[in-house]
């Protein structure tokens, strides 16, 4: 099976599912603990949601076919990535209420892809789906920070500029915070 080179690409993928499911709010939490040997990615949205049967279907790579790919290979890939790192993928969902997805990984697993460029993932998501209120939180043993769509709104108002002029500053802001909390990724 192919695999994503970065966990942040999986994140881009699953949050895109949330956007496609017409979520107006998406919350992404990343917990990174060396002490607890854990990397946990949690995405909660208020989109369409899924029934139990749909959840079973989207996590089964053999049932998904080309013509019926409402949600494609993304979740089986993530499930496989988590399982190969001593973790798992859990999905909780209610039709009409939204979906919460959690993927865990042993932080020190040799099979684990690095988190990668999470700043580019988050910023591209906010720019690409401006109708969604997006919240990103990241916690390590050394601290935490949050970043959300309001960061853009506030600076657009302040500087009277477009969101596109803020792409680089936003990425820098996130990268600085990641260093500050000692994220290893």
């Amino acid at each position, binding site marked *: 099976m192919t695999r994503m080179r970065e966990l942040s690409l999986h994140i881009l993928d699953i949050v895109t599912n949330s956007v496609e499911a017409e979520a107006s709010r998406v919350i992404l939490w990343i917990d990174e603990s060396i002490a607890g040997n854990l990397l946990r990615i949690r995405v909660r949205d208020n989109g369409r949601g899924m029934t139990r049967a749909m959840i079973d279907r989207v996590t089964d790579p053999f049932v998904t076919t080309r013509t019926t*790919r409402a949600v494609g290979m993304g979740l089986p890939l993530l499930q496989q990535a988590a399982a190969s790192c001593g973790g798992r993928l859990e999905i909780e969902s209610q039709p009409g209420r939204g979906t919460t997805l959690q993927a865990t990984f042993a932080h020190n697993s040799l099979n684990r892809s690095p988190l990668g460029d999470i700043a580019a993932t988050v910023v591209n998501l906010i720019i*690409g789906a401006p109708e969604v209120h997006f919240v990103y939180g990241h916690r390590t043993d050394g601290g935490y920070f949050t970043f959300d769509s309001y960061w853009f709104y506030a600076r657009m108002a302040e500087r009277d500029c477009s969101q596109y002029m803020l792409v680089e500053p936003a990425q820098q802001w996130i990268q600085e915070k990641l260093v500050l909390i000692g994220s290893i990724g």
Partner: protein
Amino acid sequence: MKSLSDLRAIKDKAKKEMAAREQSAKFRIVIAMGTCGIAAGARSVMSAILDEINKRNVTQAVVTQTGCLGFCDQEPLVQVVQSDTGITTTYGKISAEIARKIVVDHVMGGQVVSSHVFSHE
């Protein structure tokens, strides 16, 4: 500390600006962000487009994302939609470099980058 109504006002102002840009934009650039697209490099393609738009101060375009377009073997895919005519040019197998060329030649210059056109309708 800002109050909730301040925050709401800030958000409304930004949303209004985004909507105004959307209204007046000559082109909509759509990045296919399905699993297939992402695995093939759609994120760096999008980053290249955003960078070029900022660097060249392109005001006549908006950038959005969509899911799988059904042509997974052609990923990364980018569509350039002309707002007034609805003419949609779909570019396939593009790199960050070609993405920059699309912004400069097509969006700014009105010239389709023919080497990477997958469909044009």
